[in-house]
């Protein structure tokens, strides 16, 4: 219909064709220019971010260590060359140390300590020498002593996996690593799995099979088993569960607190409820400030006043989301159907009753679904904010990462965080569907 309005009546077919051609040309230029612009920008960013330098600096050794450490663990078998005492410790930690004279089945104690690294690799700690049998190469014998380490190798050139100096011999094979210095001889054996995940070595339930455990639990040892698992000093399941809970708590308090604060303010910012322009503008500017001052800044400011902890994180989320909710709620309020309010008014209802029965039922579904969406995404934000303010799983995650050695714990936390977010996702989806019938189904 508007075609006749935009085109003068005297326009000929040729003019129309010309117009179409111009339009096509413009579209074609646009279609070509956009990808080129994006490409140019990405090229600029490539150099602005110094990607070539980064590739050089990147430590793929770190990456390999991270990946292998996240699904495997190493056991240290250490011999003090002065006293002759041999100690077996998982990850070299005191919490994972075997009682003296005991160890996993691949370590045999006796006059000589024999360590079977698998695949025919056998290390023997003798009284005053160390022998390492490497299949396909031969036997390396080393004598740590006052003059350093004297090592004898099989005939031929040294392979690259052996590094030997006067004071230190290191042999790194696929099966493990042997390091010999004057004072210490140490073997690392790598094994797949998360060591001591359920029980540490000092627990009587270490190494007990699941069937046997169930039997013991039925026999009345349940609380003791649970205690040993929950307070496992290496994995600290209890603390981790608490940290997860704290993260959810931050998100919960922040999101719903923000909704409670924002609702009355939203009435002030909605055109149809607040005719006074000044009040409306003031309320809107308040929302802009709360939103504009980013969660990061709120976190920093709040941490100064309240110190680190979940309360600080919750308040940071609360303040940021008050701005977002205020804006969204006031938009929802402006879209309210007036007829329903008119109807309530016609029965002689007071203003409060008009709001209660005319407005709230209309906006509740919209509001609830927005609040629940935010709750979901705030569970993720609470992880990040927790890392800054020091609360919840975010703190544990950053702590484990900063030490740069407990990558199995890092991957454990990551899995837990992802599962938590999934759980919150489906929980809030379920709640949304329960509360708001016809909310577009499974979105």
């Amino acid at each position, binding site marked *: 219909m*508007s075609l006749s309005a935009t085109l003068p009546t005297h326009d000929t077919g040729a003019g129309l064709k010309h117009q179409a051609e111009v339009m096509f040309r413009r579209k074609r230029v646009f279609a070509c220019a956009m990808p080129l612009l994006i490409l140019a920008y990405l090229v600029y960013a490539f150099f602005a971010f110094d990607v070539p330098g980064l590739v050089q*600096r990147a430590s793929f050794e*770190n990456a390999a260590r991270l990946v292998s450490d996240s699904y495997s663990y190493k056991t240290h078998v250490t011999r003090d060359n002065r006293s002759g005492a041999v100690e077996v410790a998982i990850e070299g930690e005191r919490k994972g140390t075997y009682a003296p004279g005991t160890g996993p089945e691949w370590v045999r104690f006796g006059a000589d300590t024999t360590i079977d690294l698998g695949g025919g690799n056998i290390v023997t700690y003798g009284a005053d020498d160390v022998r390492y049998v490497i299949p396909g190469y031969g036997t390396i014998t080393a004598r740590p002593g006052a003059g350093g380490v004297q090592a004898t190798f099989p005939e031929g050139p040294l392979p690259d996996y052996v590094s030997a100096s006067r004071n230190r011999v290191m042999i790194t094979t696929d099966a493990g690593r042997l390091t010999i210095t004057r004072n210490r001889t140490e073997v690392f054996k790598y094994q797949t799995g998360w060591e001591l995940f359920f029980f540490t070595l000092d627990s009587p339930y270490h190494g007990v099979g699941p069937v046997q455990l169930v039997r013991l639990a039925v026999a009345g040892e349940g609380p003791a088993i649970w205690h040993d698992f929950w307070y496992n000093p290496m994995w600290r399941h209890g603390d981790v569960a608490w940290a997860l809970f704290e993260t959810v708590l931050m998100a919960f308090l922040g999101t719903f607190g923000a909704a409670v604060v924002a609702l009355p303010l939203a009435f002030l910012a909605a055109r149809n409820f607040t005719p006074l322009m000044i009040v409306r503008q003031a309320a809107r500017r308040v929302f802009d400030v709360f939103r504009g001052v980013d969660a990061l800044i709120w976190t920093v*400011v709040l941490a100064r006043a*309240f110190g680190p902890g979940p309360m600080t994180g919750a308040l940071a989320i609360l303040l940021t989301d008050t701005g977002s909710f205020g804006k969204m709620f006031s938009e929802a309020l402006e879209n309210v159907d007036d007829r329903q309010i008119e109807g309530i008014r016609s029965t002689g209802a007071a203003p409060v009753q008009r709001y209660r029965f005319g407005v709230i039922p209309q906006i509740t579904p919209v509001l609830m679904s927005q609040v629940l969406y935010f709750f979901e995404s705030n569970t*993720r934000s609470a992880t990040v904010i927790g890392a800054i303010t*020091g609360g919840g799983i975010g703190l544990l995650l950053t702590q484990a990462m900063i030490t740069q050695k407990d990558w199995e714990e890092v991957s454990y936390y990551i899995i837990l965080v992802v599962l938590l977010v999934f759980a919150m996702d489906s929980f809030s989806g379920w709640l949304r569907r329960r509360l708001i019938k016809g909310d577009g189904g499974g979105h």
Partner: protein
Amino acid sequence: MADSAIPRPRQATSSATRQVIVVREAYIAQTRRKRLYSGIMLGVFVALMASGFMLADSRNAGGFWSGLHRLPDFPASVMSEAWAKRAELPENLARYFPALIETLNIAAVSTLIGTIGGTLLSMLSTRGLARWPRLIPLFRRIMDVMRAVPEIVIALVLIFVLGGGPVPAMIAIAFHTCGALGKMFSEVNENASLKPVEGLASVGANWSQRMLLGVVPQVAPNYLSYALLRFEINIRASAILGFVGAGGIGYELKNAISWGQGKYDAAAAIFLLLITTIIIVDQLSSMGRDRMTHGRKSEMMA
């Protein structure tokens, strides 16, 4: 209430009246029950909030009530110092401007990459458009996982491998953006008309041609509007990730704050830059989104 005033025929069967009474009673009982339920819900909610608040308060290093009066102290000292050194403000702004640009670049590049990835993932996971319809659930799961992994996790791991700088943050945010936008986009795709796609298929267009020429023109305005919204979110995210070591303005802010008193003028300059940027981008993107939806409306009307 007013039924006594309603004149009704004397001979109206009393059973009908009784029925009305029964219905009304049932309705009132239902309302009362509903009100009770919502009352209980409200009570539970208030109890949860209160106990949660107290719990969080007890776990915090400083209490809420004891810290409340200290709340203005930090902003006040920052402001007063910034005011005392107001002559240096332009210099400080200029000094931290490159860091701001870096933060914006991180957000922009990750939004771009996320948009491209999200488009691809959304096409692969929409019924009717998917290249491999059997794999739709797989691609949906992939998007869910990408959305679920918090950015900080990826950023910290990558910082360990790649070293600090903007790239880890960029990859982390782009990863998350892919999943988030992919979900949004696939909702948009559901509403796209399949006719152009079928038309293109009938002339022998391959999958990428069908998507590029048949679907993208339909959904581009909605995509752009979601991408703009994401850009806004990503600026905030990249500032936060900077704080944990990924470069940009967040990193400078962390340094300025940890230097403490005497460097608060720098912190003030950074606050100013960050807040101004967020507000400007916020306004621009909301204007752009408004125009896009509006423009589409007027086009449709024409």
